[in-house]
């Protein structure tokens, strides 16, 4: 029986009492109200990899709209704990006592269905009539259930009618192919929704019991819009230099001999990074590549985070040629600066370098 969702005496005490909370923050001297879901117990001995969390939540949708070139869907679930990454530091964001809902924005190119991970720039503003209720940046986030999305916990003012205005900033990423020059403009789109707790509680909660902690991932919920799956490696253009795993993320390196399609004059070296099991893109990394031929280093460069209609989100750089026997070494300078739900927070964190041989 999983802990925070049971009212058996011991489980509640285990979750919140007697020293358990003391370790979270010094200020919690006792007798303060906090969310029962503030910090549900984690799976014991989490692997440093993608694993099945103790509990997974489903989601429901408030609406799906088009704003300029963007397809936007607003979905919601229970307020829940997530983890943010700043540099190499992982910070837990527990559920605050005032949080009412976890709102999620999915963002994609309406034309191609490519999910768009913007480094920063999705915010949700919630109003009730003319009154501002809350306004907060939604973190780019990875979740097993929901794929890649932008999300945060929001505090609402009880049940009732609200308007959520999603602001999408422009894209500052490299764009190649038909994406070149697109996604420049910021857009706004408003969703009217009714917050009803009974409806919120219809969102399904699954306890994973004995499976929790195993190295696997829940299949994402398909709700009819893109969830950020990376394209199949078979369909990616160029010569496949191989597939390697680092920090449980899967890296596929390719060389396209004629890089003109990617706006470069030479060849184009690119890396597609994805989560294991669900093949969700792993964005926002600082990825360095070196190319070594016969012991001579020909290239040492940070790969550019790039959006492409066929390759999707990837890391790429121009390169003169890649010959047979060349060694490409990838090192992750900055771990993916993307927030994570339970099950992804220990993975994609410590990422040793990888070698690919042409």
């Amino acid at each position, binding site marked *: 029986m999983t802990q925070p*969702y049971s*009212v058996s005496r011991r489980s509640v005490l285990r979750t919140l*009492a007697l*020293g358990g909370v003391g370790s979270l923050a010094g200020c919690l001297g006792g007798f303060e109200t906090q969310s029962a*879901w503030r910090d549900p117990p984690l799976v014991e001995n989490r692997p440093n990899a993608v694993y099945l969390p103790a509990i997974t939540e489903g989601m429901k949708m408030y609406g799906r709209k088009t704003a300029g070139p963007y397809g936007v869907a607003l979905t919601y679930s229970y*307020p829940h704990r997530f983890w943010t990454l700043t540099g190499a530091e992982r910070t837990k964001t527990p559920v605050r006592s005032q949080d009412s809902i976890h709102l999620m924005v999915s963002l994609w190119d309406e034309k191609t269905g490519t999910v768009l991970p913007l480094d920063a720039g999705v915010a949700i503003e919630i109003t009730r009539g003319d009154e501002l209720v809350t306004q907060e940046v939604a973190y780019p986030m990875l979740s097993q259930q929901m794929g890649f999305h932008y999300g945060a916990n929001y505090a609402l003012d009880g049940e009732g009618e609200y308007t959520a205005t999603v602001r999408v900033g422009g894209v500052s990423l490299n764009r190649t192919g038909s994406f070149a020059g697109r996604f420049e403009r910021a857009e706004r789109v408003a969703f009217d929704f009714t917050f009803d707790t009974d409806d919120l509680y219809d969102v399904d909660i699954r306890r994973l019991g004995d499976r929790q902690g195993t190295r696997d991932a829940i299949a994402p919920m398909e709700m009819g819009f893109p969830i950020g799956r990376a394209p199949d490696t078979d369909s990616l253009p160029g010569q496949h230099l191989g597939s390697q795993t680092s920090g449980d993320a899967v890296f596929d390196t390719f060389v396209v001999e004629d890089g003109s399609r990617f706006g470069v004059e030479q060849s184009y070296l690119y890396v597609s990074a994805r989560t294991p099991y669900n093949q969700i893109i792993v964005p926002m990394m600082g990825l360095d590549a070196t190319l070594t031929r016969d012991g001579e280093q020909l290239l040492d460069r940070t790969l550019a985070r790039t959006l492409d209609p066929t390759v999707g989100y990837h890391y790429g750089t121009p390169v003169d040629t890649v010959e047979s026997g060349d060694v490409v070494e990838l090192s992750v300078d900055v771990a993916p600066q993307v927030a994570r739900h339970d099950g992804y927070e220990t993975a994609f964190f410590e990422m040793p370098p990888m070698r690919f041989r042409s």
Partner: protein
Amino acid sequence: MTSQDDDSDTDTPVQLLTRVSRRLAVVALAAVAFVGTAVASNAAVGLDSASQQSLSVPRWLYVATGGAVIGASALLASFVTDRRFVASIHSWRRFLTDGRTLRRGARVGLSVLGVVLLPLVVLRGLTGPQVPTVNFALVLVFAGMRAGFTMATYLFGNAWPSLNPWRTIAEFAPNGFVSYPERFGRWPAVGGLLALVWVETTTGVTSLPSVLATTIAVYSVVTTVGAILVGPDEWFEFVDPVSVFFAFYGRVAPLTWTREGLELHLPGMRLVEEEFVDGLDDVAFVVALVWELTFSGFVTTAAGASFVELVAGVGLPPLLVYVVLYLGGFAAFVGLYVLAANVAADYLPTYRSARELAVWFAPPLLAIAAGYHLAHYFAFFVSLLPTLVTVLGSPFSPPPNPLVLTLPAWFGSLNIAFVLLGHLFAIWVAHSIAYERFPSRVQAIRSQYSFVLVMMLYTALSLWLISLPTAPPAFL
């Protein structure tokens, strides 16, 4: 001239009491202080699933100290040999009010409340969010009734007969078609209590609101039909486990309604006065109250879970392991108590049978059970209080994010205090009972030996359990 005058030539009761209580306080405080650090650190350590070796006091010493506190208190209590003083403690009473109107009003109010809440619990259990911490049914039944109302019952008084919705219904219906066979005594209630606790531990009623609602619906049908058949008075006095549960816990409480009005006693002292335990069925029920808390305490510790896993690893079905553990443990608890009665009947020069002694000395166990209950449920109740209030305030609109109260670290040591306090009350009650029943004071003191030993064992076991790190029960 009466016997009591002769006592005064040894110690004045006041002097003696002062001396006794001072020493008692020192011993108890010393134990609690020492042991408190052990357990507070232990709880934190347990949560971090780190090693258990960092205890400042070895666990065996902590457990032994608890047992010794009980033993020492029994010795100290035996210093109080003034019959008049002993009697004056437990026969002390005050009439607070004759408040007939108050009583009638409270009764009607509670009846209405009960009849409204019951269908609401079933309805919201089935239709409300299937998330335990916000579901009206679950929060009300476990935080409200199982923890809060039970605590109120032994700390203040028993209001269940008025609140009991099934009684209200049965009283309105034509009833009493069959006469209740007297020879069954309270055995049906004993079986019922064991069954309910079994359901609570194994079927997921604590986490699945719809299962809880279904269980309550079934219970309602059985109870209503039964109460209408044999009449509510017999049914709720002898058969219904919940009513007997509250009635017994209510004996510990200081407040009670008598014919004259609301009467106040010292806490626990009505256990001496009233002869409500009058058969082995009642003894079994009282022991079951102690046992159910011990059992649920055991299976939710890491040690308990790994024990069950170990035994099940041999190839036995887990549920069978639980059944054997549950019923076997209960039998052992009853057996131990009956053995103590037998031993006492053997070594005492008396014609009283072991059965009689067992019946006499059973009420103190209720104080022990109340102490355990408080140790097990007080922190649980306090932390869930905000949710309970929210849920009661808006049964049809669950909170989006249930709130709980954080507890300071010292709250953990309260549990030890509650367990010890329950036992200290039990020691005094047993002492008073012995003085009421035996003509010789030496005999009265000696009669308690074996029972005190059993109590020390119960304390040690219980203190050990609350010091263990918790874990979800295996296989459930």
